[in-house]
Structure formats: C-alpha cells, structure tokens
C-alpha cells in the first residue's frame, strides 16, 4: 500500500510538464553522447553541472540521470554499427551485434537492444522501488574478500567469452591484466610501468584502449579487404526484429535482467560485470542451435538487458546510502551538493519527492528512449550505406575527439594510435580483443581487493574460504573452470584414443 502511495507521489512529480521536458532533454543528450564514440556521460554531465545550479533539484537530477542511461542506449548503437563500444558495458554487445550488422541485420540488432533494454529498465525500476534499502544492505556485505572472489569468477568467465582458441583467450586475458597494472599502485604508492611519464602515472584509460583495439583496428582490417563495403549495403534485411526473433530472445532478456539487477547494486564495476556475465551465461544456457560470436541475436539481447538493469540499480547505493558506485554517480552527488542536498541515508525519508520522483522518471525516461530509438534505426541503417571512404575518416575524427575529451590530453590520442596498431596485429593473429579488455578492467580490481583483504585480515589467506559469500563465489569459479577445460581435455583424450 505504501509502495503504491510512494509510486503515485513519484509519478506526479515525474510527469509534471517541466520534469518531462528535462527528462526528454536528458535522454536525448544522453543518446547523442552515447552514440559519439568516446565522449561519455561523465564529460557531458560535468559540462552541464553549471546549468543545474539554476534548476530545481528534482529536475536537475532527472536530467542528469536521463543522460546516464540514455548514454547506455546510445553506446550500444555504435557498438553494433561500427564495432566501437562507447562504454565498458557495450564491449560485449559489439561481439555479436557488429557481426549481425555485417550480415545486414543491424536493424534487428538495434531493435532487440532497445526492446531488451526497455524491459530490463521497467523491471529494475520496480526492483528499486520495492527493495532499495534491503538491497543496499546486501551491497554492504560485499567487502574486499567477496569482491576478489567475484573478480576471479569474472576473469574465468572472460575466457569463456572467446570463441576461438582457448590458449589465445587466456593469453589475451593475462595481457590485459598486465596492461591494467600500469599506473600508481593504490597500496604502496609506487608507480608501475609508467616510465617516468606523468600521464601514465594514473594508468592507461579504458576509452583509449577500447577505441584503439576495437574501433580503429577494425577500420584498418576493413580497409585491407577491398570487398567489405558491398557486404554491408547489399544485404540490408528488415528494419526491426521479427516476432520470431523476439520470442527467441525472451529467456535471454529475462536472464540478463535478473543478472543485471543483482550485479548492478555492487559499487565499482557491478554494471560492467552484469553485461558480460549475462553473455557468458547465455552462451552456456541458450538452446541450440547457437551462433555466438557470429551474429546470434541472443548475444545482443542478454547483455543489453543486463547493462540497462545494472545502470538503473547502480543508483541504489547513491539514493539509499549516498555512496557513488561509479564516476557518473559521483557527479550526481556533486549536483546534489550544489543544490544544498547532502546525499546520504536520510534523503529517502527527508525528501521523498526527490527519491520517488527520480525512480518514476527513470521508467519514463526508458519509455522515451524506446520511442526515440526505434524510429531512429532506419536513420542509422542509412548511415551504413555511406561510402566507406567517407565514413571511416569521420569515425577516426570522432574517436580522437572522444579520447581527447576524457582528460583534455593529446597524449591519450597517441596511446590510442599505439593500441590501434597493436589491435591490428592481434586481428591478424586471430587473438580476440574482448578477453583483453576484461582482463584490463578486472585484473587491477582483483589485485586491489586481494591486497586490501590481506591487509584487513593481517596476512591471513584463509579468510577467502571462511567468509561464506566469498567461499561460494570461489566454488562457482572452480566449477566454471572445470566446465571450460573439460571439452579440451575430452578432445585430447579422443585424439589419443584415435591414434591408438
């Protein structure tokens, strides 16, 4: 009963003309920003912070939130169309989405991404409304030991992401891990692999690596093949997913939503883990015939639902505890402070219109995004028919602008160029970039949490197995490891038998 009252309050706030306008502006900006590779919601929100000085608090936060999840929608668009993941969570969407685009099925891919995201957004909004405070308490139970075990599970799952050689996938994960170690170590303050260059003392940025390895390397590989462009133009199928496609994806969307809502509440990387955990789960549990890595629509639906659910639930630590789970949330805290609202546990009780108004507007924003994006698919498809010799310089320029906008540093553009060359080499060697990116992000987090857990336990390693959540996660990792290794063991045994 309380819930209905609160939601009613929320919707009266969210559906006021002013707030609807700001919501629309936010999601529109967010989509644009997400589509432009590299320029992310962080830069946009930072630029718009002064504007929020003059707005009433609820409207300001509604707009900024709209930018955030609008960027999630937009980021999938570039991931699918040109293999450029704008956000870390769209990396996984690029895997199957881009392959679908190459087969002329960009329309269904984009459509399924939008539909899956909308469903996940609706469900996760309900989750927030119903379970925000208890979920926040659950998130607090995740200390460094639990995070470490979760990252171990994540890294093993990263190997599953690859559809080629297992050895190469493991090698890429380890290489990503090593690249992620560049920078100043949190615990000792020692700068590692920075070669005395101050720009490297905080590590290599994710955007730099992703743009170089995914986007530009792909352009270089495409330019080498003379016949690529015909494939794109010739086989443009339908513009929207068929009923059959949608039916096939229902279990994937459901799985993705659940995983996303669960993992999104974990501050610091929960939303990212959500998308590729969903992809991994999908790969193992979807009904055959499976075509993952070559354009299976379920490989787009699951991670997209997961990353949108994760994006929404990542507001929970912010709204209930006043703790930001990622840099975008930190900016939202900044916006709240500008308005004189001290973010913390009392926001929910002291300012119910703010809390419930934001929740209601999240759903409204999702609805606006679906209505915005579905018709735009036709326009995006037209973009693909632009001759490649005009398209790829534009992509390069946007990548450069995007990478520059992160730190206002031209150094980052040089780094992106280096990674582009490396990415091209890896494409030629048939080593996949996705495990590298995941090792790059998860490896340092894993190390940070390992050492912090050891500091807190004063050097006692058994704490990873005695704490219940951590023990369970490590157990699942072991099982997953066995599942991953067993096919190759089986194959070797078959070969041995054949020779005998």
């Amino acid at each position, binding site marked *: 009963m309380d819930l209905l009252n609160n939601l009613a309050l929320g919707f009266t706030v969210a559906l006021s003309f002013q707030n609807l306008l700001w919501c629309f502006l936010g999601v529109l900006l967010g989509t644009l920003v997400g589509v432009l590779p590299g320029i992310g919601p962080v830069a946009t929100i930072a630029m718009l912070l002064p504007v929020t000085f003059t707005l009433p608090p609820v409207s300001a936060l509604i707009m900024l939130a709209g930018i955030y999840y609008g960027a999630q929608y937009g980021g999938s668009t570039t991931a699918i169309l040109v293999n450029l993941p704008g956000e870390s969570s769209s990396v996984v969407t690029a895997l199957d989405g881009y392959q679908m685009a190459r087969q002329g099925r960009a329309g269904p891919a984009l459509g399924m991404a939008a539909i899956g995201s909308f469903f996940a957004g609706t469900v996760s909004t309900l989750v927030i409304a119903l379970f925000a405070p208890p979920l926040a308490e659950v998130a607090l139970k995740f200390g460094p030991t639990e995070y470490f075990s979760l990252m171990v599970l994540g890294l093993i799952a990263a190997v599953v992401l690859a559809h080629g050689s297992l050895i190469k996938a493991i090698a890429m994960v380890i290489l990503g891990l090593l690249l992620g170690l560049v920078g100043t170590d*949190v*615990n000792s303050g020692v700068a590692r692999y920075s070669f005395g260059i101050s720009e490297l003392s905080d590590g290599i940025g994710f955007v730099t690596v992703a743009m170089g390895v995914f986007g530009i390397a792909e352009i270089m590989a495409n330019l080498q093949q003379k016949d690529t462009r015909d494939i794109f133009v010739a086989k443009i199928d339908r513009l929207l997913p068929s009923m059959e496609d949608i039916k096939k994806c229902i279990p994937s969307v459901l799985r993705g939503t659940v995983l996303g809502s669960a993992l999104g509440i974990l501050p610091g990387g929960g939303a990212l883990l959500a998308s590729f955990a969903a992809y991994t789960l999908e790969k193992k549990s979807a009904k055959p015939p499976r075509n993952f890595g070559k354009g299976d629509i379920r490989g787009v639906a699951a991670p997209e639902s997961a990353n949108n659910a994760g994006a929404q639930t990542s507001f929970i*630590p912010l709204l209930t*505890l006043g703790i930001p789970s990622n840099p975008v949330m930190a900016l939202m805290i900044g916006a709240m402070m500008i308005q*004189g609202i*001290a973010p913390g546990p009392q926001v929910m009780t002291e300012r119910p219109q703010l809390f419930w108004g934001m929740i209601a507007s999240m759903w409204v924003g999702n609805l606006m995004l679906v209505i915005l994006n579905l018709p735009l698919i036709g326009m995006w498809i037209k973009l693909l028919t632009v001759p490649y010799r005009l398209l790829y310089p534009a992509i390069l320029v946007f990548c450069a602008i995007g990478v520059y906008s992160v730190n206002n540093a031209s150094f980052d553009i040089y780094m992106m160029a280096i990674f582009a060359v490396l990415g091209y080499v890896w494409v030629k060697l048939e080593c996949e970039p996705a495990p590298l990116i995941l090792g790059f992000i998860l490896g340092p987090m894993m190390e940070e949490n390992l050492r912090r857990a050891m500091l*807190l336990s004063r050097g006692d390693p058994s704490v990873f197995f005695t704490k219940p959540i951590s023990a369970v996660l490590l157990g699942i990792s072991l099982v997953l490891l066995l599942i991953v290794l067993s096919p190759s063991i089986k194959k070797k045994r078959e070969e041995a038998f054949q020779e005998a």
Partner: protein
Amino acid sequence: MQRLLSLVVAAAAVALAAPAPAQTYPSKPIRFVVPFPPGGPLDITGRAIAQKLAESWGQPVVVDNRPGAGGGIGAELVAKSPGDGYTLLMGAVSTHAINPSLYAKVPYDPQKDFVPVALVAQVPNILVVNPSLPVHSVKELIDYARAKPGALSFGSGSTGSTGHLAGELFKTMAGVDMVHIPYKGGAPAMQDLLAGQTQLMFDNLANALPQVKAGKLRALAVTTSKRSPAVPDLPTVAESGLPGFDLTTWFGVFVPAGTPPETVAKLNAEIVKALASKDLAERLAAMGTVPPERNTPESFAAFVRAEAAKYAQVVKSSGARVD
C-alpha cells in the same frame, strides 16, 4: 625634417600604445585549470567562482579539468604557462604542501613556480568511527587502541591524502598502532567503514556529516585547531588529548610566477568578492569551511609556506611515499 617628424610621431604612438594592455585585463578568455576530476567539492567550487568571475568581467572563464598524479599534472601545466594572468590554477594542500614531500620528485617547484592569489576554502576533516566500536571520545579511542595494538584499521581516499596523514599524525602523537588501508577515492573508503571492514576514518566534513546525522557513524572530533561552526558541539582532536594536532584540507587559486602584481591584486579582489557572495558563502559554510580573517596574496603565500613546512614534517614521520 620630415623624417625627424615621422620618427617623433612613431615614438609618440608607441608611447601611447604601451600602457593600454595593462588596463584592459582581462581582454580574452581565462583558463582555470582544476587538477582533479569533475564533481568533487573543489571542482564544483571552482566552477562557481569561474562563473562569478565571468559575470563580473564579461570574459569567459573556462574550467579545464586535468586530473592525475594527485593534482600534479594540472599543476605542472600551469607552472609552465606564461605569467600573463590568463591561466589560473585551483591548487590544494595536496599539490602545494603534501606532494613535494610525498613524491620522489614533482615536475614543478611549489614555491618558485607559482604566485598564490587567494585562499578559497579550508575544510576540516572529522574523525568518525563505526558505531560497533565501543568508544565515544578521542580519549576512549586512544585507550582502546593502546590496549589492542594493530587491531584497528583506518581507511583513506588515497596514500598521501589529508585523511591518511591525519591518521599517521594521530598514531605518532598518541603512540598507538593502527593499520592504514588506502582506497581509490573517498567513496569506497566510506563504504567499507559503514560495512565495518574498517573501524575509523578521518574523512572530510561534507562527506561524513550526512552519515553521522543518519546515525550510521559516530563522530568523535574535528581535526582543525578550532571547532567548526558546522558542528560546534564537536570537540577538536587538540582539545581532546593531543594538543597541537591541526590538519585541514584547503584549496586556493594560484597563478604562474612572473604574473604582474597588479593582475594578482585584481584577481584577489574579485575572488574575495565572489567568495563573499550569498550563494557561494552559503555553500562554503555547508562544507564546513571558515573564511579566513585576512585573504590577501601575501597572507595566502605565508599560509602556503607554513603548510609546506608542516607537511614535510608529517610526511617524514609517517614514512609515506609515492615513487
């Protein structure tokens, strides 16, 4: 005759032209380098000041975020910029007092490469503990820590932050043994404190106060030498048993060395005016800052020198280092 006349005219023209640029500062957009990521209290205050300066002078004042190396990247950039008054830096206790002692080498000289213009804010840190810890005052905390050496952990936003150094100073002065747990930023550190993974923290007032008000944390003292008007009932660490304990997080505006004194004076006047404006003053008070009695470039410069000397001592006795 004609040549002499044209020479005289030319000389007069030059003589008339010379004073003009000095009178029309600022005549082009000003760049305000903030060496930290967007969104934190320092960045937001910087943006507010930039807006006020722009309104007053009619020239755009653009905030340029250049995070990294604890503020070092932005500071280095401004140190190497020309001293013409068109590049400003939002320097902080980290860039000008702590880093030179903490890092093996910094790519700028905090005293020689900069001219301090005005102090913007001094934010106190507040000693908070997780409610599960059975201590209700600084004295009880010291007794508890002495009885259980090595049992307590305190978190901080990064190695070399005021939160870290406050803890180290506390350890040295009280003679207790606690373990420092560094995090990447104040938010994860706060999260683990709330969860009970760590037991205490010297966090900045703005972040910790909402949690204290909600009952999730217990506040024991403030780290400044005087009580903070935002929490007047909270004693200082100095009056709770450790006299001489004084640590604040401060930030202020700097310009590169060589900037003409008139420009510096003009900037100082305008910034002090902006700080006294109603909305900024309110916001700063909410952050727990106390405006200084005098805010001139000279008083700020003396303050920065004193802070640098103080932190050289604190960092050395704590043994903290960043290579």
